């Protein structure tokens, strides 16, 4: 605070004081307007920041989940796949394929050019080939077709059929879409078949009036 100038008149000093008060008032009003403005703006900014933070957190969670799922959903492709196992009698089998693709939705393997060999280590191996197929590890089944060829070492039959279903837990092979073949009974045709005991026993069935038929050429 400066000391009053003794040379000034009282009117001049009053005028200076009024001017000083007026200037202080203007500054106060300006500051007051900034405070008022900030009172309105800052909550909005705070809300924006908080909302952005929440949005970002949620977004990252969703994105990472989607990325994780995408990682899990990726198909697994195998070249020259080979699955080994054994049935409930301890007889070994192998399921091979030129290619195998794991379906992410079902977990099943889609087989390309499958080759099944049953009763490995036994005297007579049953071999089954086809153009394609599906291996369900959970259900323990292999469904193959079309163009299934069965070379049954146990019975000596060579069979052609559109489809074969192999239960890898029991080793039983079944088909119900017709079968033709050659073997100990010459040629034969049947509606369905069951290969049990890994080829040791086979049943061919007719359907209705369509009997199991064949010809022996002595």
């Amino acid at each position, binding site marked *: 605070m400066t000391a009053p100038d003794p040379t000034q008149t009282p009117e001049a000093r009053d005028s200076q004081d009024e001017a000083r008060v007026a200037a202080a008032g203007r500054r106060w009003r300006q500051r007051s307007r900034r405070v008022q403005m900030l009172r309105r703006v800052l909550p909005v900014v705070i809300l924006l920041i908080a909302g952005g933070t929440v949005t970002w957190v949620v977004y990252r969670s969703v994105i990472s989940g989607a990325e994780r799922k995408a990682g899990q959903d990726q198909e697994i492709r195998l070249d020259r796949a080979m699955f080994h196992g054994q049935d409930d009698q301890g007889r070994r089998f192998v399921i091979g394929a030129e290619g195998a693709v794991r379906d992410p939705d079902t977990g099943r393997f889609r087989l390309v050019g499958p080759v099944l060999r049953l009763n490995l280590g036994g005297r007579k191996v049953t071999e089954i080939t086809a153009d394609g197929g599906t291996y369900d590890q959970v259900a323990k089944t292999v469904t193959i077709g079309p163009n299934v060829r069965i070379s049954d070492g*146990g*019975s*000596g*039959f060579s069979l052609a059929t559109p489809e074969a279903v192999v239960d890898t837990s029991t080793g039983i092979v079944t088909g119900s879409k017709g079968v033709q073949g050659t*073997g*100990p*009974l*010459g040629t*034969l045709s*049947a509606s369905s078949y069951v290969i049990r005991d890994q080829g*040791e*026993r*086979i*049943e*061919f*069935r*007719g359907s209705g009036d369509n*009997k*199991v*038929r*064949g*010809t*022996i*050429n*002595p």
Partner: protein
Amino acid sequence: MTKTTMTAALLAIALVAVPTLGGAQSVPGASSRAPIMWGADLLEVEGNTLTLVGNAELLQGQNRLRADRVAGLNQTGDSRLEAAGNVYFVTPEQTIRGDRAVYTTGNDTIVVTGDVILTQGQNVLTGSRLTYNTRTGSARVEGAPTAAGNRVQGVFYPEGND
């Protein structure tokens, strides 16, 4: 035992040779080398044992064998087929019915046992065992060895006697 009784007993246990009831000696079907067509409701294959089950039927040439069950087929055709249940062996000349039959394709012989009925036209012959040669068409019927009531019996209609 009188001579008549002995003759009757011999007939009862006799091996009655019947070179076809009408005396025909032609080959009724075909040789054992002819293809055998077969059919059934179910074919069971277990090891080397092959069995036709349910309306089993084998057709070789003009000969037909039907039964509920036929077992013993093999790849070469030189089989010993065992038929059981409602056995019918039908040739162009005769129809043979029995409970069981064994058909040995190697020697062209089928042996039908049980309540055997052989019919040829109107002629009928019954017995307990029939041996039939599928190549020559000759049949041989036997009665029960001991039971006088199971003698070979038959009805013959001479030609021109309708």
